[in-house]
């Protein structure tokens, strides 16, 4: 029995009685124990509960009782999504002992469908970063080459799925945090339309732009998860009804006759040669499949990184203000401190990237600068939205490489925040405009590192986006993870 099977295949084998849930979960845990030293995907492994849960699902199956549709599928959860009874650390010293007293909506929905949570996975502290190096618990490593970064901030999600340590994972995507690790680890990652998936229980970083999104090895597995987590949630006022769309239906409808726009501003300067040629190959493949490809210009993209870091940092400075260690946190004797001195002492425990963004965010919101920075950034955002709306009157999808460059070595760019920020240029558009985007594993470089292609669609067009992604996936034939 291979751990590499797709989620849909897993379901049919369990249903047919070919494998037991316990067997599969135990094997997954074995795999975790074997590879964790090398990749460090997990912050918390919930071994005993996972096994117990697996056994109880097997019992239910045997007794022909009602079982949730995921039939004990092993999943991992990014550690900024609240799980009842399990630590939710956000990879931060500030929450290293925080156990949420409630489940995020996506978690209760997964549990209801009898998913088995293997554990909580690594991220950049509070999801701020694109390499997973800014974790209080140390970096995760790329399964394709453990010297290299796995992308981020949902690095643990990308790694755990890629290294067969779970079948699917939930990450969160604020500026590309699901798609970046999906691209760097050669797995599929979806950033859904803003408002499609409940954020209740997702620890906020930049709440006007982030979404929870699934990571999996196959597009059909992503569709399966979306069927469970998408749709209105009374606990999140920003969610919308999706009329119970079945994302798994008609995945193989093809892409014939669809119009695809290659975004000029995402394939120019700064893009790695191998990434460029992979992009050209993707265009050819899509044309072979019957799609029409044109080049499209979104010139607001040139200002997107600046706008993104202004807005995201502003929101971060407010969202992270609550971490004052008064109600929860880590052990610290407060005696003898005046309140403000106490707060500043406590808050010096954030890592460097979080500190940088909170300072930046506080600055752009401060009196006299709001108009100069924050309002201007919102104007860029509005401009991007109108350009994207305009583009979707001409094309069905937009296309670009997910990441402009190949994965790089751990430590290589950690002291160069600006360079790291610029790596988000191709992913940010979807966040600032709210539209959905998916990263599909497309190629492996000459150095053996993954390259992902990104397809973007109009708001709430996930179903057709998944169909397009499926077409591209079916046109590729990639090697197995070398780990």
């Amino acid at each position, binding site marked *: 029995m291979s751990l590499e099977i797709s989620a849909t295949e897993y379901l049919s084998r369990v249903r047919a009685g070919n494998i037991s849930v316990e067997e599969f979960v135990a094997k997954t845990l074995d795999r975790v124990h074997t590879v964790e030293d090398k990749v460090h995907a997990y912050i918390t492994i919930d071994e005993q509960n996972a096994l117990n849960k697996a056994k109880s699902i097997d019992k239910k199956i045997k007794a022909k009782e009602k079982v949730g549709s995921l039939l004990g599928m092993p999943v991992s959860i990014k550690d900024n*999504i*609240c799980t009842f009874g399990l630590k*939710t650390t*956000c990879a931060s010293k500030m*929450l290293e002992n*925080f156990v*949420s*007293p*409630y489940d*995020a909506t996506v978690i209760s929905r997964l549990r209801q469908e009898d998913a088995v949570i293997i554990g909580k996975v690594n991220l950049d502290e509070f999801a701020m970063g694109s390499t997973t190096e800014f974790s209080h618990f140390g970096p995760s490593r790329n399964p394709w080459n453990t010297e290299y970064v796995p992308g981020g901030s949902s690095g643990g999600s990308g790694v755990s799925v890629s290294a067969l340590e779970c079948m699917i994972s939930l990450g969160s995507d604020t500026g590309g945090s699901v798609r970046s690790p999906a691209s760097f680890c050669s797995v599929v990652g979806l950033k859904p339309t803003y408002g499609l998936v409940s*954020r*209740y*229980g*997702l*620890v*906020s970083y930049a*709440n*006007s732009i982030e979404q929870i999104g699934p990571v999996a090895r196959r597009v059909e597995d992503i569709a399966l998860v979306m069927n469970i987590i998408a749709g209105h949630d*009374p*606990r*999140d*006022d*920003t969610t919308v009804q999706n009329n119970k769309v079945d994302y798994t239906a008609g995945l193989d409808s093809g892409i014939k006759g669809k119009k695809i726009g290659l975004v000029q501003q995402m394939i120019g300067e700064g893009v790695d040669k191998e990434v460029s040629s992979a992009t050209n190959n993707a265009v050819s493949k899509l044309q072979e499949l019957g799609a029409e490809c044109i080049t499209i210009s979104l010139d607001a993209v040139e200002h997107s990184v600046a706008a993104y870091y202004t807005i995201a940092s*502003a*929101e971060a*400075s*407010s969202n992270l*203000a*609550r971490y*004052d260690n*008064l*109600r*929860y946190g880590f052990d610290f004797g407060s005696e003898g401190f005046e*309140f*403000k001195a106490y*707060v500043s002492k406590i808050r010096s425990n954030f890592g460097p990237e979080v500190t940088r963004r909170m300072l930046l965010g*506080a600055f752009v*919101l*401060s*009196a006299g600068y*709001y108009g100069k920075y*924050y*309002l201007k950034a919102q104007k860029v955002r509005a401009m991007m939205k109108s350009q994207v709306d305009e583009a979707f009157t001409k094309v069905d999808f937009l296309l670009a490489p997910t990441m402009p460059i190949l994965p790089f070595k751990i430590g290589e760019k950690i002291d160069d925040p600006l360079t790291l920020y610029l790596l988000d240029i191709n992913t940010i558009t979807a966040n600032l405009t709210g539209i959905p985007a998916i990263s599909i594993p497309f190629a492996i470089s000459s150095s053996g590192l993954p390259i992902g292609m990104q397809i973007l669609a109009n708001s709430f067009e996930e179903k057709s986006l998944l169909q397009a992604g499926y077409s591209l996936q079916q046109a590729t034939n990639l090697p197995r993870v070398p780990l």
Partner: protein
Amino acid sequence: MTKIGLEIHCQLTKLESKLFCNCKADYRNLTPNSNICPICIGLPGSLPILNKKAVEKAAMISLALGCQIPEQISFFRKNYFYPDLPKNFQITQYNAYGPTSIGSDGSIQIEGKEIRIRRIQIEEDPGRLVYEGISEKTQITLVDYNRAGTPLVEIVTEPDFENPRQVRIFLNVLADLVENLEVSDPYLEGAMRVDGNISVEKGNRVEIKNVGSFRDIEKALHFEITRQQSLVDRNIEVAAETRHWDEARKITVSARSKEEEQDYRYLPEADIPLVTITQDKIDNLRKQMPESIVAKKERYIKKYGIPTQVAEVLSSDKFYSDLFEKAHTESNAKEIANIITTDLMGFADTREKKIDLKVTHRHISDLADAIVGNKITRNSGKAALYEMIKTGKSFSEIVSSLDLGSVSNASSLEKIIDEVFKEEEKAVKEAKQNPDTINYIVGKVMRKTKGKADPSTTLEIIRKKLLSA
């Protein structure tokens, strides 16, 4: 000229739940930190869900104060670090980038003077800090989050008050108004809190915070006028600053200015989508709004002929006007207004006493009917009312047990008057010569009947007898 403006925080105490979660809006008298949930203590991952009823209630206040309601309202975060603020920001409304708060540009007439309302905004109350310890050194600060997230409206006036007296009248009118609207019980402890801004001629604006009660805001304003005026008189600049009211010493003291120079870094609250308020919705709310105090007063005067003074007192008191509405009929309305305003109000004048009042609308209407129908005198009526207040027993039971029935039937009254004439020969003689002394005889009759004699009938019979005797 002295200029005073106010910021009034008024809790929407009539709501069931808090502004953004399902915890109870009524946080009073609960074990500390028992009325809380992940949302109101801002646990990581929690999101606010706007209480739509709070928006409706705030809209009603806005309408009652003649404010404009924008087509869409939005919320902002006001960022600052304070232990009673679990998220270290307060969700509130903010009009610096266009009017998006529930109300703006209203006004209200106070004794013929217009007080303009700059804006009304919806926001969440913070938790409560409780200080314990016998000395400053042993003092500890406890935080109770039961109040955190309680729905509030902040009402900001223009600096239109010229003296503390106008402020007091305005606050009373405002308290009556929100009570009449059934959005708040302003007499609950901490339900209505006031900050003031005040400047005298040639002086800077001073903010007064931390005032516990309406009475204290008047005192604080008086203190400030004297303080600021004496500075101006001596050519000393009045510092633009925030001062705290020191309740014990009855003075204002300067808050350390550095601490107060806050930059709140306002930011749109993206977790709460814009709320659209259509004209239909506004029309609908208007229909749901209870009759205003002014309209009620007019109705009392016009429809029932209740004297202006009485109508004013009655209409502005929610509890008693409700009692009046339930008790009155066309014929007894005036009498009921009289009973309530002259006897009952004096007896039960606080919130607690009103709650404990055993007298129901039934008692009042029975009593009024008896007085109107001359079955009991006003005097006996008073006695019956006190007995009803004391015991809650029915009117008829009290009348018979205390033998309060009116002696208005002429023959029995005549007998008693004959007796008095016999006993008081001298006074009768005197009265014949000087009709002004007739009251002495009336008094004697009253004493004999224990006040049950109808005064006008009594007088009539005495006059007749004096003429014929």
